[in-house]
């Protein structure tokens, strides 16, 4: 060992000496000596430096590889021929995961060949990548990139390929990079779908939607255009300042609200505003507005609802409810009045029939009777308006009624009024109370005359009318269906719009004090409504007024003709039970019956009446009963109880008004006999005979 150490020590000393002499010979500015028999001989300084540099290079290469492997992109370096020089970890992992191995992991494979062998959906992209790669390597193109689909079995995928050149001192190759952009693509597709969904919602919305910045619309939907009477949203998007869509008096308020909203001051989120349609019509709008960030810009969004139609319906409903309330009130008063008038009328008639009465007393009674008649007419009108007048609907040809009434009207209206009628040939029949319709027509014509003091033209027109759902929804209280239309048009002074809505209210009159009761149109209104029809008025000041009645079409075949009236006062001697809670009325009716020759019993209510009926021997032939009475048994229940015990007993109802107790929907049930209070003695006499004669037809008990 000692010998070897000595040998080595000597040899190194000689080498160091040789090195020193080499350095001295070459002057220190040289790294290597080249001799043909020995190859390059490195000087010690150069040798040390090269070893250090190599270590550095290895470290650098490791760092570069670590960076490449850490990148999620699949990266490969190609030489100028397209041979893959190296790949990163992502590339290797992807290749392994997709079933490649060995040489196909990348190294040594020619990338051009890979591109050219591509099949299926991505082959087009691969071909263009190959030609781009040629251009990049030859320096004719800087970088190149394309996005291509690459679906896996489970889900759709997308990649982006990036080709960039390598610098000349790295050998003029290229870097190929595949980046998985599936997530971005999926998010984009998702965003696009959401956008499309929202756009559909906005386009199909039945609420007008707008977004604006300083009164320039950024967005609007078709409904908004429709509300303002435009065909397309583009037409309003083009407006430089969309405040022109609102009434001028609204614009200042709108501007103040907008500024307050943007300055975060109190601004109403909900407000009403009047807009102006393209054709000038005013629309009532309900806006719901709020501030919104729109790509960094502060804007205001508004949801706009057209409530014009709703407002109209509400106004109609209010009017209708008012009429209903007034009707209840007047109906109640009229009922009480009828009982009072019954007593007055019966007593006046009693005096007139009294042979012992002095001429002066008869004269007074006559005045009382005439005044009472007028009062009766008045209460009838009130009942008609409040739809509580019992109606006797009959099969009616309105044309015939117009012709008959017309003859009478010509005399009433005078020569200054020219009456013309246009009657439809194939007019449908209607099922309606003929007398009340006649009254209604006369009322309308008299009103028309009063509107034409200097004369004019009156047109009465009939026609068939089918109302569809569309025309019905614009108005309350009517159903779609077939109607007979009766129109009365005058060329008179017309009715100003501010009072047009009130003309059907009772006691509302435009005539001078003392010239009208204000009940004419109310009566017509109530009657038509009660009959299941509708009434409509239009008027223009200075041009005239048109009132249209829609009467429900009747389907019955021709009804029987009215029985001719016997004018004589029929008398009788049957047994009659009077049931009436009002003592004065009861007394008056009993007196009337006795004077007609009948044998009369009386009771104060239903319960007493039934007892009296059961106790009577021989039994009563007819029971004359009030409809509405206190106690458990009303008129209807009493009648039912009696008919169960003795079916041949006749029942005659009397009432101030009927309501639903004996009528349905304001129309009398068939087979029910009703006398409306107040009635005259002759009316009572006829009603009794008519009712009793039915009993004679059915059985032999009548005397």
């Amino acid at each position, binding site marked *: 060992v000692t010998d070897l150490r000595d040998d080595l020590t000597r040899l190194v000393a000689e080498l160091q000496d040789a090195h020193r002499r080499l350095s001295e010979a*070459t*002057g220190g*500015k*040289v*790294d*290597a*000596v*080249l*001799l*043909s028999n020995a*190859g*390059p001989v*490195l000087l010690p*300084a*150069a*040798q040390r*430096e*090269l070893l250090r*540099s190599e270590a550095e290079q290895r470290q650098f290469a490791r760092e570069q590889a670590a960076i490449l492997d850490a990148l999620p992109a699949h990266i490969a370096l190609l030489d100028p021929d397209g041979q893959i020089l190296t790949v990163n970890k992502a590339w290797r992992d992807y290749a392994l995961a997709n079933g490649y191995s060995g040489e196909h992991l990348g190294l040594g494979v020619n990338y051009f060949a890979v591109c050219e062998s591509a099949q299926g959906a991505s082959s087009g992209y691969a071909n263009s990548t190959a030609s781009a790669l040629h251009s990049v390597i030859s320096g004719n193109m800087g970088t190149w990139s394309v996005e291509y689909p690459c679906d896996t079995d489970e889900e759709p995928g997308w990649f982006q390929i990036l080709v960039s050149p390598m610098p000349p001192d790295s050998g003029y190759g290229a870097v190929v990079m595949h980046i998985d952009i599936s997530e971005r693509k999926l998010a984009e597709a998702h965003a696009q779908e959401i956008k499309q969904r929202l756009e559909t919602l906005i386009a199909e919305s039945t609420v007008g939607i707008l977004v604006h910045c300083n009164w320039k619309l950024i967005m609007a939907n078709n409904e908004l255009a429709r509300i303002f009477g435009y065909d397309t949203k583009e037409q309003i998007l083009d407006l430089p300042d969309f405040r022109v869509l609102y009434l001028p008096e609204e614009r200042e308020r709108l501007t103040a609200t907008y500024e307050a909203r943007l300055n975060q001051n109190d601004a109403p989120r909900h407000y009403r505003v009047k807009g102006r349609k393209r054709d000038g019509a005013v629309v009532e709008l309900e806006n719901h507005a709020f501030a919104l960030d729109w790509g960094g810009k502060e804007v205001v969004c508004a949801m706009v609802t057209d409530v014009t139609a709703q407002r109209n319906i509400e106004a109609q409903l209010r009017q209708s409810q008012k009429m209903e309330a007034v009707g209840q009130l007047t109906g109640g008063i009229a009922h009480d009045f009828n009982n009072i008038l019954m007593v007055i009328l019966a007593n006046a008639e009693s005096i007139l029939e009294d042979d012992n009465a002095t001429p002066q007393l008869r004269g007074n009674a006559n005045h009382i009777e005439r005044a009472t008649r007028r009062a009766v007419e008045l209460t009838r009108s009130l009942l008609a308006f409040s739809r509580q007048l019992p109606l006797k609907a009959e099969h009616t040809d309105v044309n015939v009624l117009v012709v008959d009434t017309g003859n009478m009207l010509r005399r009433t209206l005078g020569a200054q009024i020219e009456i013309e009628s246009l009657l439809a040939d194939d007019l449908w029949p209607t099922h309606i109370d003929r007398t009340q319709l006649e009254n209604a027509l006369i009322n309308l014509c008299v009103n028309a005359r009063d509107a034409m003091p200097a004369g004019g033209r009156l047109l009465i027109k009939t026609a068939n009318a089918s109302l569809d759902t569309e025309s019905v929804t614009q108005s309350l209280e009517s159903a779609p269906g077939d109607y007979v239309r009766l129109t009365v048009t005058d060329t008179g002074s017309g009715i100003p719009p501010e009072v047009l809505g009130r003309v059907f209210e009772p006691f509302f009159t435009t005539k001078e004090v003392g010239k009208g009761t204000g009940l004419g149109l109310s009566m017509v209104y109530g009657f038509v409504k009660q009959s299941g029809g509708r009434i409509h008025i239009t008027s223009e000041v200075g041009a005239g007024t048109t009132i249209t009645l829609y009467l429900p079409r009747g389907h019955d075949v021709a009804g029987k003709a009215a029985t001719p009236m016997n004018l004589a006062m029929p008398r009788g001697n049957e047994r009659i039970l009077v049931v009436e809670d009002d003592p004065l009325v009861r007394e008056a009716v009993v007196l009337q019956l006795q004077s007609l020759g009948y044998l009369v019993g009386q009771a104060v209510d239903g319960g007493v009446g039934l007892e009296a009926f059961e106790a009577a021997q021989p039994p009563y032939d007819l029971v004359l009963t009030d409809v509405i009475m206190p106690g458990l048994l009303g008129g209807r229940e009493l009648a039912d109880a009696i008919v169960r015990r003795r079916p041949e007993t006749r029942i005659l109802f009397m009432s101030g008004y009927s309501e639903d107790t004996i009528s349905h929907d304001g129309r009398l049930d068939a087979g029910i006999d009703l006398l409306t209070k107040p009635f005259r003695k002759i009316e009572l006499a006829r009603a009794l005979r008519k009712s009793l004669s039915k009993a004679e037809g059915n059985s032999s008990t009548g005397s």
Partner: protein
Amino acid sequence: VNKSEVSCKLYVAGQAPNSRRAIENLKSFCDAYLPKRHVIAIVDVLVDAEQALADRILLTPTLLILSPAPVRSIVGDLSEVEILLQILGPEIDMADTLSERA
């Protein structure tokens, strides 16, 4: 008058210190005095010793100025600009270098 292109070949020993300095010095000299009129070929003798022997190179770094003729050679790290100026002086266009520095 257009001066002709200067073509040269620099023999180096990898990244050894003198060789590295010679490459840097040659590049900055050419950029300064022969802008866009020079071609440099760098030959690493550790990779290609044959070529060096063929050119009869004894030491690295050695610069061979191939054209314009005649062929001349400089050994060393080329840190002395004066020597390069002396040899390549006739090829340098002062207008070029002045405009470059202006």
